[in-house]
């Protein structure tokens, strides 16, 4: 179906709505990469097979991820005039049970996660109450999404359609207000007005730097040169971060629409999405969505008959972390090695093939339609003074609930950890949160009231980065953490410039001395000055931010470093060379569990009498410590 006019859009919307909320039951399976990894394909196939065999009058569909990744596979039932019902950890066996109830018109109570009463597509049409009258029985008591700690503080703006639409169905996207913002921009707004709206909204780049998006667009619009390129950075290389993947797999058209609006504002007719090749599903989803948009006439020549033309090509990433850096990314699209270069001439003036180029991150693009549809003032109301809107984080580490969370800027670290994350395990204590990916910083307990936004994180020595968050408890050694991130960055350094190539390696060597009891206090200062030299001297932001984990841990956990170099002790009992295991003679009741576990035969003793540990044989594997139920194996 070709879409040329507002009437066409309304028709498409009606068709889409009828599919989103059909007058028969519908089963939705979360089939983003996280769902698939948990076995969603089998579940989907099972429902489809059952539906076919039993001639069920209903629909089975796939959708993206709502962020509850640790509860996958997630399955939703959308029943006419009922709240939407979500079920968690639906293995094929569970699916079988759910099926027998749902196909018999009953509402399953096991594996229930939450109900959704009101669907707010945000972009268009306003909230939609999903049932009429009063809820009864199980449904009345069933928890709502907003009752769950994980969801209470969340606000899904960029993720507005994830878990609601079939990413391969453009009608679903239109039904939820998609491409109406593009229509508005093209038919009611001058390019300058679009830029003005994005600037006033206060949108800042979600790819790490936090650069004001409107300012970037304005410079690119002003730049001399033709053609101009509009680029999307979907290279997402931070280990453990997958918000961009999730957005692409859940709602690809939001990104395309954002790019279309940006292209109109900047005056560009050619775009590229540079997508990480290791994301096969995201790549396929993007391919299909680009084809669908082209078929609908929403990409290509003369869009909405306004004379505006824009098309998008896909480019597969070069496989290295540093290819996500803007100049390396552009070199890579040109077919050159993905190496950064100096940016003294900005890429908005001379970027891809030396032409004016505007690069934004996936999540940045997904925010754009919102600003145009709802207005800059609406958007400005969300977030903090300097950081507007929401941000998606991937919350992992020592918390109960891990997954993707989208929250308004400015919520505190404490709420993120304790409420959304459900806190650290009972026997442990929160120690630090590492924010911003491998070159982010570690923020300690003392600062956990800190609002999470670009500027406070920066002041605290961390960065927003792409939004990776790792919660650490007191079993983590901060010297060890610094080593871990440096290892990643050393591996990913392109090697072009000396501070990064050799400086990071030297920092790592100094840390190794610390964790093996060879460091001195003077080395702490040496490490600090080297870290600063690497930060100041490196060519690109990889080297420029790589010292952050070291600098931030030196700043907040200096005592722990001092313990390593002064007392030759690792307080968290992680650095093997600095710890000794011993058996507390009073606590040991001679159960012999450790004797059997020790691979070295270092523990001896008679049954029911306190055991002895021969330190000379001990390789500090910690097996005895783990197996002892009586806390008799001590580490110092």
């Amino acid at each position: 179906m070709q879409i040329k006019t507002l009437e066409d859009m309304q028709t498409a919307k009606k068709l889409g709505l009828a599919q989103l909320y059909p007058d028969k039951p519908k089963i939705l399976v979360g089939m983003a990469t996280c769902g698939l990894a948990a076995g969603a394909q089998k579940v989907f196939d099972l429902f489809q097979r059952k539906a076919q065999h039993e001639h069920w009058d209903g629909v089975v569909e796939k959708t993206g991820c709502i962020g509850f990744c640790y509860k996958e596979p997630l399955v939703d039932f959308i029943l006419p005039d009922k709240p939407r019902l979500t079920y968690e950890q639906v293995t094929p066996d569970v699916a079988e049970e759910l099926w027998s109830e749902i196909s018999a018109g009953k509402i399953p109570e096991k594996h229930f996660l939450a109900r959704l009463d009101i669907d707010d597509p945000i972009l268009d049409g306003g909230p939609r109450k999903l049932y009429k009258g009063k809820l009864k029985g199980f449904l009345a008591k069933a928890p709502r999404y907003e009752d769950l700690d994980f969801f209470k503080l969340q606000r899904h703006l960029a993720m507005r359609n994830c878990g609601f639409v079939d990413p391969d169905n453009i009608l679903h996207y239109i039904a939820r207000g998609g491409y109406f913002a593009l229509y508005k921009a093209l038919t009611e707004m001058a390019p300058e007005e679009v830029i003005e709206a994005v600037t006033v909204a206060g949108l800042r780049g979600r790819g790490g730097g936090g650069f004001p998006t409107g300012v970037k667009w304005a410079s690119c619009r002003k730049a001399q040169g033709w053609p101009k390129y509009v680029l999307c950075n979907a290279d997402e290389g931070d280990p453990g971060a997958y918000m961009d993947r999730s957005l692409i797999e859940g709602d690809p058209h939001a990104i395309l629409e954002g790019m279309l609006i940006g292209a109109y504002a900047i005056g560009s007719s050619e775009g590229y999405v540079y997508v990480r090749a290791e994301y096969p599903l995201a790549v396929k989803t993007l391919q299909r969505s680009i084809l669908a948009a082209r078929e609908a006439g929403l990409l290509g020549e003369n869009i909405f008959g306004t004379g505006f033309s824009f098309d998008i090509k896909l480019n597969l990433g070069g496989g290295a972390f540093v290819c996500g850096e803007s100049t390396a990314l552009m070199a890579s699209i040109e077919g050159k090695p993905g190496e950064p270069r100096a940016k003294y001439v900005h890429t908005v003036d001379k970027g891809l093939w030396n032409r004016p180029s505007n690069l934004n991150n996936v999540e940045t693009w997904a925010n754009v339609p919102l600003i145009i549809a709802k207005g800059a003032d609406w958007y400005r109301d969300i977030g903090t003074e300097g950081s507007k809107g929401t941000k998606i984080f991937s919350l992992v580490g020592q918390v109960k609930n891990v997954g993707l969370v989208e929250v308004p800027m400015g919520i505190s670290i404490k709420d993120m950890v304790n409420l959304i994350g459900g806190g650290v395990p009972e026997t442990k204590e929160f120690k630090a949160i590492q924010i911003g990916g491998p070159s982010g910083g570690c923020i300690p307990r003392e600062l956990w009231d800190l609002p999470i936004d670009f500027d406070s994180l920066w002041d605290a020595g961390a960065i927003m980065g792409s939004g990776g968050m790792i919660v650490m408890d007191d079993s983590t050694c901060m010297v060890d953490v610094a080593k871990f991130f440096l290892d990643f960055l050393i591996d990913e350094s392109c090697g072009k410039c000396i501070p990064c190539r050799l400086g990071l390696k030297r920092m790592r060597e100094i840390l190794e001395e610390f964790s093996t009891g060879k460091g001195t206090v003077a080395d702490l200062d040496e490490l600090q000055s080297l870290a600063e030299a690497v930060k100041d001297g490196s060519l690109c932001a990889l080297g420029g931010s790589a010292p952050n984990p070291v600098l931030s841990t030196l700043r907040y956990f200096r005592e722990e470093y001092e313990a390593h170099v002064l007392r030759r002790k690792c307080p968290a009992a992680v650095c093997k060379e600095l710890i000794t295991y011993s058996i507390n003679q009073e606590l040991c009741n001679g159960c012999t569990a450790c004797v059997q576990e020790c691979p070295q035969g270092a523990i001896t003793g008679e049954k029911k009498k306190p055991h002895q540990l021969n330190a000379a044989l001990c390789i500090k594997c910690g097996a005895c410590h783990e197996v002892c139920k009586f806390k008799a194996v001590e580490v110092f």
Partner: protein
Amino acid sequence: MITFTIDGKEVQGQEDWTVLDVAKWHGIDIPTLCYHPAVEPYGACRLCVVEVDDGRRSRVVISCMYPIREGIKVLTDTPRINNVRRWIVQLLLDESPASPKMQELATKFGVTPSRFKKAGVDFACHLCGLCVRACHEVVGAQALTFGNRGLRKEITSPFHTGSKECLSCGTCLYVCPTGAMEQLFDKVGA
């Protein structure tokens, strides 16, 4: 003409000049390693760093690529700059303690080999890329290229096979600041 200051002294340069060009013109010494007037700047060694205040903020940039702008204030001798340079020289010296070029730099910066110095590498390649650029831009051949990345980055012939493009002209030997090309040279040609 563009007017600005270097270390407080008013200087002038032409439209497309870099800070380093102007400094050289005025006899102001800025150390360099990967720079050579015959080829395009590459910005890898970072030895030529200076601090530039453009009226909005002060930051560390490399003089061999930073285009001059009206009214900027350039400083070539600040604690930040010296910390970067001293560390670069230290790291390079430890890679090749016996290299005459490194020893010369080390003397200038008062740096001595550290406990991390490598043994037995007299003429380590510092991947400054002068040979690659000279071969490409001056000779017009493409007999040399970078291979690998990170700590394994190296100078090689394309596809690691002897290069038929190599004319054995010796230009790379001439520009190499470390003497490393002496060791590599035989492996490059076909």
